[in-house]
């Protein structure tokens, strides 16, 4: 300890000042909400929900669907679709460069993964946005995959569940991406006309064009705790109205209070709750019920 540090009262001496034994990278994670240091493996088992404060961390599309769906059957829909640079868009980087970076980082071709599978034995199509892929932005591939998922539901008479996590439309595809709002919303009319349930689960964050289209069109709109959900981003609103925003503004609980979402579901209860809701809407029993009635 240096002479200066010795002068400091012990309570304002920080731990970091003395070099600690280094921990192997990735073994421990700090909760960004309560700052608790968490054992990575344990956290993963808890579906990336902090065991101490129940903060829901963002999780990727594959993990989301993997933890939600039964292990089999699973058939991916629209994996063969890949994005195209129709506008030859370029800012500081070209669109193809940004796509290549995102693809390398996420191992995905685009920001939506759609899988036909089952939930406690109930057949359904589930899709999830990959937020790390260009902010989960909705371009042509996202729109087309969503629509193919919806059409599979219509053909087979099975429900659709979508976990959204997106900053909105994909600027690099211009109005083509704007039109995906109209396209995905239109596809949902077919489900409604045939009485096929669509459950939309809004996760952190669901903003802009995704929020203002498919994500708000569920028969049931559910949200994960404390997810940021809204049309305009908080910074844009702050600049427009020139006042600080109320505490908890645009969070799930705020939306529940204002009647925008039906319910908030803890990620660890997602399978149970969605299975329960779908089994009621489709007049079926799911596996747990079948097992308990034996």
């Amino acid at each position, binding site marked *: 300890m240096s002479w200066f540090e010795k002068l400091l009262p012990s309570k304002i001496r920080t731990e970091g000042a003395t070099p600690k034994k280094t921990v192997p990278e990735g073994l421990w994670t700090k909760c960004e909400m309560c700052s608790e240091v968490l054992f990575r493996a344990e956290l993963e088992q808890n579906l990336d929900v902090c065991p101490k404060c129940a903060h829901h961390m963002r999780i990727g599309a594959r993990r989301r669907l993997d933890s939600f769906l039964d292990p089999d059957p699973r058939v991916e829909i629209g994996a063969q679709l890949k994005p195209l640079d129709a506008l030859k*868009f*370029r800012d500081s980087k070209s669109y193809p460069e940004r796509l290549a970076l995102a693809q390398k980082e996420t191992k995905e071709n685009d920001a939506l993964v759609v899988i036909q599978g089952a939930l406690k034995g109930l057949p359904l199509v589930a899709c999830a946005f990959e937020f790390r892929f260009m902010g989960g932005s909705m371009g042509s591939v996202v729109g087309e995959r969503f629509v193919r998922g919806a059409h599979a539901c219509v053909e087979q008479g099975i429900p659709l569940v979508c976990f959204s996590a997106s900053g909105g439309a994909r*600027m690099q595809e211009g109005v083509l991406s704007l039109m995906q709002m109209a396209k995905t919303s239109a596809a949902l*009319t077919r489900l409604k006309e045939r009485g096929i349930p669509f459950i939309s689960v809004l996760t952190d964050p669901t903003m802009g064009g995704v929020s203002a289209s498919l994500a708000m069109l569920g028969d049931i709109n559910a949200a994960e705790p404390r997810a940021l959900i809204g049309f305009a981003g908080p910074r*844009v609103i702050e600049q427009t109205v020139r006042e600080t925003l109320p505490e908890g503004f645009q969070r799930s609980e705020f939306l529940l209070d204002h009647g925008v979402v039906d319910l908030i579901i803890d990620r660890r209860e997602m399978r149970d709750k969605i299975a329960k809701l779908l089994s009621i809407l489709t007049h079926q029993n799911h596996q747990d019920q079948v097992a308990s009635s034996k």
Partner: protein
Amino acid sequence: MDLRFLDFEQPIAELEGKIESLRSVQDGGSANIAEEILRLEEKCKALTKNIFSALSAWQISQLARHPQRPHLHKYLAGLFTDFEELHGDRCFGDDTAVVGGVARLEGRPVMVIGTQKGDDTRENVYRNFGMPRPEGYRKALRLMRMAERYKLPLLTFIDTPGAYPGVGAEERGQSEAIAANLFAMARLNTPVVCTVIGEGGSGGALAIGVGDRILMLEYSIYSVISPEGCASILWKSAEHASKAAEAMGITSAALKKLNLIDQIIEEPMGGAHRDVADTVQRVKRALLDNLEALEQIPIEQLLESRYQRLMRYGSYNEYT
């Protein structure tokens, strides 16, 4: 500098100024001056044509937002007879940024909905600069359903920077209000023609912009985000708005090329604000042509082709 003119219009403004001053001299009456005026007028026309033949996307954005550009009420007055405005969403209030009502177009009953910008600051404040709140979209939805019930073709007019980003708007479900309209318009049981007359700002414009025919005035724009917004995100500064406008392809010509709109309505030389009456007539012609064509199609078939058209939106590669 004449503030009624945009930067790139200044050479035209100067020439017109000269013509104007010559005219005031001419009151004395001289053949030479009359000839000079004629010569300058020809020159002015050629200059306008020249400038307007090579406008950048950013210049077109400025025209689309030109303070003198005709806004919705000019079309309501010029296109229709018997227009009667209908107010309110029946739940919360009446949004003055959205104007709707029943009217007649060349005698035929129609439903009209549009976003309304103001012509001056006072009116712009009243109209919230043409930025709707959820109750505006819900009023529109109420009128769409009425159009469906009474078999009135729906004509929408788009001129908005976008949906209003405010605390109250979020509290009352701005996203849901927009989404509900996209959902309803996709299957609305009546012909729908949407016309972008100025600024087509993102989801806030699309919320009254899904239909059987999408028309755009030549110097209007339609974009997923404002050029300034795009520039501040991707270029980290709104000053690069002109680059963003170019990159996003927001002009009627670019959107026609991508097959996202059906028809470009040509504007009078120098833009809609140079001859409002002529512009309104051109829009009227286009609306009548399209309505006549749509009315020939059985409604079931119309809805199916509207759906198929929505499904075709997008550009991607498919590998097998």
